[in-house]
């Protein structure tokens, strides 16, 4: 599980490389429309989902410890 999520993280990290194109070329994708606000929305969503997953994992670890007692 930990390895899998790490792999996913590494795979996702290369999306940043693809995002760096020629600035003069306006690509017509959804994330660039209306002042690029969707980029901000996605960023916040990623952070929040990450935090939520983190909280769930703490919860699960705690459950394991509680059962071990």
């Amino acid at each position, binding site marked *: 599980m930990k390895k899998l999520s790490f792999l996913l993280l590494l795979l996702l990290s290369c999306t940043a490389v693809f995002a760096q194109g020629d600035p003069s070329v306006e690509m017509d994708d959804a994330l660039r429309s209306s002042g690029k606000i969707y980029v*901000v*929305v996605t960023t916040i*969503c990623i952070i*929040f989902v990450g935090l939520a997953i983190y909280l769930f994992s*703490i*919860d699960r670890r*705690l459950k394991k410890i509680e059962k071990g007692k």
Partner: protein
Amino acid sequence: MKFIYQTWWKVVAVLLVFSTLITGLLLPVPTLPILHETIRNLYFHVPMWMGMLTVFVVSVYFSIMYLRTGDEKHDLAAVECVNTGLLFYSFGLLTGMLWAKYTWGEFWSGDPKQNSAAIAFLLYCAYLVLRNSIDEEQKRAKISAIYNIFAFPIMIVLIFILPRMTDSLHPGSGGNPAFGRYDLDNGMKIAFYPAMLGWSFIALWIATIRYRIRLIENKRNAIN
């Protein structure tokens, strides 16, 4: 207390907040002078206070329960609720300061709302200091439970009542209408209410995690 070990309400809380991240940032909002797009802060700044309020209410409940039963667990639950509440309190203060900088002009303009929020913050910090200054466990639990029960109404008066009786820049104060009066239209409610509910449950969730860790620590200390 089976409730705190269940998962469904945590999932609901996460989904509620997650939905507000999208609706809150993308749905149309009323265009108002000075506020502009910062009106969207309503979905994130106000729920911090709601989360704080939720865990503080739970904390008072457990303080009363401690005084009734003398069960140490209730005391631990009360402390961890206050600890989590202070985290959300700090978020509320900091986001409020940032919002104030771009609407009122200063991070801290000595506004009655800001000042009394700061005083109430110290009030709750004093609760933690008071706890740490008493070594004897039962005495500590009893005194801090009583302090907590009194601190709560004073906090309510300081944050939600006194600033409204004087002139304040904060909405809802001194003839300065709250958002609900004129611009919390139905479009904003779609994001606002889920945010209030979702963040309350997330605050509660963090408090339960802290409480469960505290229980284990407490058990370990008792054996040794």
